[in-house]
């Protein structure tokens, strides 16, 4: 038993450091700024003075960036790319955030209860976690979405399904470290039930590591959502999705590179911002004793 505990603590450091590394420098502020700007623009998109994202104007097709009032140019149907990107951002950001939080909720509860209760439940959970780790999750996601059909709800559920594993592993390992600590023992000593200890004492103490992991997971889920929508398994047309816009644009690479490149830049910047935020969170919580 002892050895397993050591192994999992090692695994926590491993997991966190492998997700963030010590690369990245001090980009936290930059990340927050980027993300805040994007989120604000996405939320306010309907009220901003932008072209109608669904307005088709065949005379204006393939307008290059910075021409005729189209900041980022237009696509094959003459629709404004900037306003479509912002509309797509609403979808992508919401899906990534919702699935990361859902993954956190499931993984956090399952993992910490496994770590706290031990026994059969713990062994069952860890076996499930092992299985999920050895199965290529992207394959699973492609399969499930192809079968169930692409809707926002399905995307969130599938992405959460691929992400609860990491939350479960880390929350279990953290719980194992924590359950011998004085505040938990004290809570038990004054007669708190196991459930109460789990929900009122253990879970709140897990917040720092869970939040950090959630930011890092969100960036992974954003990429996955983009990949799925690239394959036509994301938001359905005419609703814009970044991955889909990029996929459509690749047919016009030779005549209008911006149609494919702009959504790509949007994805890259967003993922970068979320990653930087995650790194900053990690550093913030690590400095606290």
């Amino acid at each position: 038993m002892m050895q397993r505990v050591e192994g999992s603590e090692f695994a926590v450091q491993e997991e966190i450091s492998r997700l963030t590394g010590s690369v990245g420098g001090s980009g936290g502020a930059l990340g927050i700024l980027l993300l805040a700007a994007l989120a604000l623009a996405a939320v306010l998109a309907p009220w901003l003075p932008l072209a109608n994202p669904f307005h088709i104007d065949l005379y204006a097709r393939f307008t290059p960036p910075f021409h005729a009032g189209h900041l980022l140019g237009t696509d094959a149907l003459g629709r404004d790319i900037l306003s479509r990107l912002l509309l797509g951002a609403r979808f992508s950001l919401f899906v990534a955030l919702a699935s990361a939080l859902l993954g956190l909720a499931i993984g956090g509860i399952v993992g910490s209860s496994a770590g706290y209760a031990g026994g059969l439940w713990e062994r069952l959970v860890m076996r499930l976690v092992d299985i999920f780790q050895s199965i290529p999750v992207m394959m699973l996601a492609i399969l499930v979405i192809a079968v169930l059909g692409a809707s926002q709800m399905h995307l969130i559920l599938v992405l959460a399904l691929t992400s609860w594993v990491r939350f479960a592993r880390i929350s279990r390992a953290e719980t194992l470290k924590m359950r011998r600590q004085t505040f938990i023992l004290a809570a038990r000593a004054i007669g708190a039930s196991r459930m109460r200890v789990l929900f009122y004492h253990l879970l709140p103490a897990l917040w720092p590591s869970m939040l950090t992991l959630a930011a890092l997971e969100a960036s992974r889920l954003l990429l996955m959502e983009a990949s799925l929508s690239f394959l036509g398994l994301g938001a359905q047309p005419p609703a814009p999705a970044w991955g889909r816009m990029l996929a459509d644009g690749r047919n016009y690479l030779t005549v209008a590179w911006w149609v494919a490149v702009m959504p790509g830049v949007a994805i890259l910047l967003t993922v970068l911002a979320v990653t930087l935020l995650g790194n900053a969170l990690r550093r913030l919580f690590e400095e606290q004793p």
Partner: protein
Amino acid sequence: MQRIASRIFDALFSVWALLTLVFFVTRMLGDPTVLLLPLGASPEEAEALRIHLGLNHSLGLQYWNLLRTAVHGDFGQSFLFARPALQVVLERLPATLELAALALALGTVLGVSTGFLLALHPRGWLHRVLSGVVLVGQATPVFWLSLVLILVASVWLHLLPSSGIGGWKHVLLPALSLGCFFTAQIARISESRVREELVRQHVRMGWAKGLPAHVVYLRYVLWNAAAPIVTMIGLLAGEMAGGSVIVETIFAWPGVGRVIYQAIENQDYPVVSAGIVVVSVLVIAINLCADLVCLWLDPRTRRTA
């Protein structure tokens, strides 16, 4: 020995769980006969096809059939090609292996050496530039990288072909796209591992004994840092499998990933199951190998719990 056996057992268990998962997911689909028959086909014809394909049995029986036949490597006939599904998938496997092996090899060498450089130069312009590259490499979506590479190398510079299979020129762009994320991740873990090793006592002793730099770096630092990196390579192989579907679709690379994508579009269950099972078994096998290599690299993990 006991450890090795238990790892192998775990791997087999994963394969079983995978088959079960794939089965329940694919059977949630609609009726594939609707898509396979021409418009206006009679209900009797549809029923005949369902019986022919074994879709008329109960779910439990269908599941049992899948398990029983999968052990024999039989996933049924492809609805679309009217050939054994496994055959359709396996004949595409060499192309996928070629691509993945190159991406893995390229990514491991590049990633480990980048990580080493980052750890050896913890500050200065080299560190800044390299860590910036690594960060961007982590955030770059594989499909976008593919497109940019095509745009730059094929459309603008006319250096490399944009699609298909052929000589080394064809494999270069897809391998780069597929290996990018992998390389960045390997670089990160290598950096943190090597940095931890550099300050340890045995490394200082190596320097104190006056050993040449390459002996200290390779034998003392890299050897001890290797086990987690190998584990990581195994874990990332799964991510790479997902990426291969996209890369192969974009570059028209005739591999398993592309066949899976096409099969999903055509609701060709047997090929979907066979493809996903083959790729996943491959990934599970790679993970098993990584585990075994770790047992060999790090004697501490050999003790049985």
